[in-house]
C-alpha cells in the first residue's frame, strides 16, 4: 500500500518488497503453468496448500477473501456443471484448479503494485507505451467503475430502472451515455498524454530496478523444482511424477 503521509518523492519511487517485480512475475508464470499442467487431485491439493501457505505468510488473506466472496457462486456453478457432466472427481479437480489459479493471481497482484511492475519492465527495455497501457489500465479502472455507477444513477433518477430484468429492457439507457462518455474520456486522455509529453522516444524509470541475488535464487529454485523431476523421470522411470 502507498503511504498517505508526507514523504520524500524518492522514497515513493524506490522499489519496495523483498523481490524484484520481474522475479515475482516469473514465479507467477511458473505457478500458473504448474496448475494448468497438473492432472491429479493430489498434485492440485499440493499446489493449493502451497499457495494458501504463501497467502498466510505474505498476509494477503484479506484480498484473497474479498476475491473469493465474489467468485464462490461461479465456482459452485462450475462444480455442479462439471460434476453432472464428468463426475465428482473431475468436479473436485476443476474446483481445486480454479482455486489455485485464483490464489496465485491474488498473491501476485496483491504483492506487486502494477506501476512498479511496469517500471521494472521499462528498465528491462519494454516500450513506454506498453508500460502506460499497464499503469493506465489500473489508474483508470476506478474512474470507469464510477462512470458506470453515475450513468445508472442518472437514469434511475429519471424513472428508468436498470436493475435485474430491466437492464435487458432499458440497456440502451446505460450503454449509449456510457459509450459516448468513454469516447469523450479517450479523447481527453489522448490530449492529456500529448500535452504531458507522452510519445517521446525514451522514458526514465522512476525507480532503480535491478535483479539481486535473492531474485536469481528464486528463479533458479523454480527452474530446479520444475526441471529436476522431469530429468529424473526421463533418466530413471521409477521417479515418474504421477500428478503432472
Amino acid at each position, binding site marked *: 500500500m*502507498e*503511504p*498517505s*503521509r*508526507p*514523504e*520524500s*518523492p524518492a522514497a*515513493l*519511487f524506490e522499489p519496495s518488497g523483498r523481490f524484484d517485480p520481474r522475479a515475482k512475475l516469473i514465479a507467477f508464470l511458473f505457478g500458473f503453468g504448474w496448475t494448468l499442467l497438473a492432472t491429479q487431485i493430489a498434485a492440485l491439493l499440493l499446489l493449493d496448500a502451497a499457495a494458501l501457505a504463501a497467502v498466510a505468510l505474505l498476509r494477503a488473506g484479506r484480498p484473497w477473501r474479498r476475491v473469493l466472496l465474489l467468485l464462490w457462486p461461479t465456482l459452485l456453478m462450475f462444480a455442479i456443471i462439471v460434476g453432472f457432466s464428468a463426475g465428482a472427481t473431475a468436479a473436485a479437480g476443476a474446483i481445486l484448479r480454479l482455486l489455485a489459479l485464483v490464489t496465485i493471481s491474488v498473491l501476485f497482484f496483491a504483492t506487486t*503494485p*502494477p*506501476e512498479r511492475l511496469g517500471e521494472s519492465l521499462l528498465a528491462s527495455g519494454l516500450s*513506454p507505451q506498453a508500460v502506460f497501457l499497464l*499503469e493506465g489500465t*489500473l*489508474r483508470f479502472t*476506478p*474512474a470507469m467503475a*464510477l*462512470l458506470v455507477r*453515475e*450513468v445508472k*444513477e*442518472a*437514469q*434511475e*433518477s*429519471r*424513472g*428508468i*430502472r436498470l436493475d435485474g430484468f430491466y437492464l435487458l429492457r*432499458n440497456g*440502451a*439507457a446505460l450503454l*449509449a*451515455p456510457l459509450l*459516448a*462518455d468513454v469516447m*469523450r*474520456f479517450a479523447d*481527453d*486522455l*489522448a*490530449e*492529456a*498524454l*500529448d*500535452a*504531458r*509529453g*507522452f*510519445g*517521446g522516444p*525514451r*522514458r*526514465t*524509470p*522512476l525507480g*532503480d530496478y535491478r535483479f539481486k541475488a535473492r531474485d536469481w535464487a528464486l528463479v533458479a529454485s523454480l527452474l530446479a523444482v520444475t526441471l529436476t523431476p522431469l530429468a529424473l523421470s526421463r533418466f530413471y522411470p521409477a521417479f515418474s511424477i504421477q500428478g503432472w
Partner: protein
Amino acid sequence: MIVCQALRYRYPAAGALVLQDLSFSVAAGEFVLLAGASGSGKSTLCRLLNGLIPHLHGGEIGGVLSVAGQDPRVTPPHQMSHVVGLLLQRPDVQCLATTVARDIAFGPAGQGQDRDAIVRRVRETAEWLEIVHLLGRAPHTLSGGEQQRVALAGVLAMQPRLLVLDEPFAFLDAAGAAQLRVLLRRLRDAGVTLIVAEHRIEQLADLADRMLVLDRGRLVADGSPDQIMTGDIAAWGLEAVDGPLSAPPQPSAATGATVMGWEAVEFAREGRPVLRGVTLKVAAGEAVAVLGANGAGKSTLLRHGNGLLRPQRGAVRVSGQTIDRRPVAELARTVGLVMQQPARMLFAPTVRDELAAGPRALQRHDPAWCARLSERFGLDSLLDRPPQLLSAGEQRRVAIAAVLAGRPRALLLDEPTAGQDARARAILRDLLAECAREGLAILVATHHLAWAHALCPRWAVLCEGRIAADAPPAEVLARPELLHRARLAVSVGTA
C-alpha cells in the same frame, strides 16, 4: 512568445471556420485573459498553441502561427510540451499515474531527465503548490480542487515558458478559486507567460495584463481588462463583474406546502461524516440554493433527496412520507434530479425521444406537456438532433426538460452552471424561476453565488456537514465569519 497572423482553422468535416483571421501577438511574461462565450473558439486556440491541433485533431489551418519560435503545426506535441504547458478542462483525466508523486514525475520522465533531477523537480513543484501531503495518494481519491492542483503540478514540473489554462475555474469553489488566483499571480511574477481561457472573467479581470475576446471565432476586442469591460461585453456573451449580486433577488413564490424534507439526516462515507444532522425543508414554488465548499456535502444532500443515498440516521420525507426503501425509479415520480454532467443522462437518438423516455418509463407520458417544455426550454429547433451532439448548455436544458417531463413536484440540480457561459447561465436562471413560479420546489447546489443570488430567495449554507445558515441571501452575506468558515468569502468579494 506568440505570433499569430491571419490564423484560421476548420475542424475536419465541419463546414464553418472555428477561428477566422486571428491576428495578435503575446510578449514573454504577459498574462492574457482569453474570454468569449461557449463555442467562440477559446479551447480551439488553446489546442493550436501546443500542437494538439492539428497533430491529434487534424483539420484545415491557414495563416501564420509561431510559439516560442516554433511552429506547432510541424512540431509534434510531445516536443511542444517542453515549451508550452497546457492544462485542460477535466482534471480527473489529466492525472495520469497511480500516485500523485508519479503523476508529477510523468512529464519530466518522458523528457528523459535523470532520476535525481526528476525527484528534485517533483519535490520543488509539490512544495510550490502545497501538495506535499498528497504525494502518496491515488489521484482518483482526491477532490476536484485537489485533482486540479495535481494536474497543474504535472504541467509545471515540465517547466514550460508558456502556460495555457482552459477553464481552470470551472469546478472550483471560492477557496479553490482564491488559491488558484494566488498561484497564477506567483507564476506571473516568476516570468511565465500565461494564457487563461475562462468564462468566469470576474476571477481574473484584476489579475490579467491583457484581455482578448473571441466571438464566433473572431478577435473582437484586445486591450486591458478594465478598458474592455467598460464596453458592452454582454453582446459577446460575457457577464459584467459587478452585475448580478447587485441585482434584486427573485421574490419567493413559496406556497407553504412542504414537498421535500430532510430531518436530522446523518451520513458517513468511509468513516468520515459527510452530513451531520442536516434538517432542511423546501416548499412548493420555492427555490433554495445549497452553498458550500467542494466536499461540504452538497451532492450527498441532493442524492438523499431522491433515494440514491439513504440516511444512516434521520429521515427524508417526500410529500410528507418518509422514503424508507422506496426505489429511486419510483421516487422519480415526485423528485427529479439533474446531475452535474447532463450528458450522462442522455441516451435517446433524438431530443424528442429523450423528452419522452422518462415519462414513458413512469407511465405518465403526456405529449402536450412535452411539447410545452420543448417550447419553453428553446428545444423546438433541436427536437430531431441527437442529444449527445449538442453543446453543453443545450444538453443541460435537454436534461432538465427531460426530468421535468415526468412532472415531478421537486427538482434537485447539482452544479447546473459548471462550464456554462454567461448567456447559458442567464437562460437557465430565467427558466428555473419560471418553473418555481408555477409551483415547482427547487433545490440547487452551486458554487456560483451571483447566479444563486438572482434565482434563490433562500440560501442554505452547508459547512462541515451541517446547515450553518438557512436564511435570505442578504442575511447570509451580512455574516462574514460564516462566509469565511464555509469558504464562500472570496467569491463574495469578487462576484
